[in-house]
């Protein structure tokens, strides 16, 4: 019998939503939440002996301590296999799943599997270290993700040979394998080119890695005369959310005038973000967008001026493509307005 320990967050553990995202790790015997479906998919050869539940914010704010605590819990069950998630496109959950999977693999030397949407930051961080099954971006993809995760996990536990990413359903780990092909490389290359010219589908044998790094810009030399702008993915908007920016998967960003505004208060502003506990930001929006202290620094002459507008969107499940689109539109305006530096805050 293959002994399995499963890791999930506070939401899937049934403890609560964002208001409970700060709960510490706890362990429960047997299956919880998505573990039920996982149990079914794993079948008779494996048993989920325990489920570890941890709040996403607690994990991400205390990565080292949380990892250590959870590792201890996992160890006490002496499992043969560890499964985390699936986390879909939940960023903090993905980081937690990836971090703990890698720690379990490195320390206990047992196979680990997680599941994420490719845009989850946890996928980029850990795809080279662990097997991460590619999932949809939300929990609606649960039914599809679980069987693929279970199948891959069982194969790993039984030390069976693992096929390429497309076949097994995991995110490519950047591993290259030598294989023999019937046709030589030159012919395959020409065939590919011909297919491309004809507009037919073809599969590259060497996908180019995505090296999209942007080099840092030179620093601000004269801060006393610089115009500084505030941008946030933390969803701060004027009270009432006039542009109706969505709580998750935002379809837009907002541009808001703060001329003469010295302080953001619960009467004037709030957060539209649905991916963190909004209590603190609604009580005092400066906790996410520090307008009050920038006004002080403006008066003290530390900075030249605070730009008249701030820009805001909700970075909760929002696609990378949309985030790029919003930010590049925002950046264009900031350049045109002569802004010399930006403070971008995230929650």
């Amino acid at each position, binding site marked *: 019998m293959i002994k399995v320990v499963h890791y999930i967050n506070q939401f899937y553990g049934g403890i609560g939503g*964002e208001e409970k*995202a700060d709960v510490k790790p706890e362990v429960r015997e047997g299956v919880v939440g998505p573990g039920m479906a996982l149990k079914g998919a794993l079948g008779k050869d494996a048993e989920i002996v325990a489920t570890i539940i941890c709040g996403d*914010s607690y994990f*991400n*704010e205390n*990565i080292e301590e949380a990892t250590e605590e959870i590792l201890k819990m996992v160890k006490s069950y002496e499992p043969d296999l560890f499964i985390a998630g699936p986390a879909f496109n939940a*960023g*903090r959950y993905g*980081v937690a799943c990836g971090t703990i999977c890698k720690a379990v693999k490195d320390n206990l030397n047992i196979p680990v599997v997680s599941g994420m949407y490719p845009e989850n*930051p946890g996928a*980029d*961080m850990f795809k080279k270290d662990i097997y991460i099954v590619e999932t949809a971006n939300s929990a609606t993809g649960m039914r599809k993700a679980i069987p693929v995760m279970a199948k891959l996990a069982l194969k790993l536990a039984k030390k069976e040979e693992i096929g390429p990413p497309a076949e097994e359903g995991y995110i490519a780990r950047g591993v290259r394998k030598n294989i023999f092909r019937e046709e030589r490389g030159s012919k395959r290359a020409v065939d590919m080119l011909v297919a491309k010219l004809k507009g037919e589908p073809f599969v590259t044998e060497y996908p180019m890695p995505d090296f*999209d*790094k*942007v*080099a*840092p*810009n*030179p*620093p*601000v*030399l004269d*801060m006393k005369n610089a115009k*500084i702008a505030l*941008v946030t*993915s933390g969803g701060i908007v004027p009270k009432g959310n006039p542009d109706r920016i969505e709580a998750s998967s935002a379809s837009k960003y907002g541009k808001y005038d703060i001329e003469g505004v010295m302080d953001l208060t619960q009467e004037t502003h709030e957060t539209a973000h649905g991916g*963190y506990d*909004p*209590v*603190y*930001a609604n*009580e005092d929006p*400066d*906790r*996410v967008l*520090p307008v*009050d*202290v*920038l006004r002080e*620094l403006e008066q003290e002459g*530390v*900075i030249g001026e605070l730009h008249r507008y701030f820009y805001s*969107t909700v*970075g909760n499940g929002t696609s990378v493509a949309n*985030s*790029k689109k919003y*930010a*590049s539109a*925002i*950046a264009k305006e*900031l*350049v045109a307005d002569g802004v*010399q*530096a*930006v*403070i*971008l*805050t*995230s*929650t």
Partner: protein
Amino acid sequence: MVKEIERAGIPVVHICTVVPISLTVGANRIVPAVAIPHPLGNPDLGKEDEKALRKQLVLRSLKSLETEVQDQTVFDK
């Protein structure tokens, strides 16, 4: 978002709590924040102390913007 603003030629500092995510998305100047639901505040402090904490983080951010960096840099002091 940080990357697109940087790409447009404006130096940008990312204030965020989960530094590994910021590193993954490609921010070059990073200032670690207090907590996910209140990156620039701490509701356990009194109003004055909380504002002082916020000012300290913003000053550190401005300092990062005045600092020449070659690569991704975390300004945790």
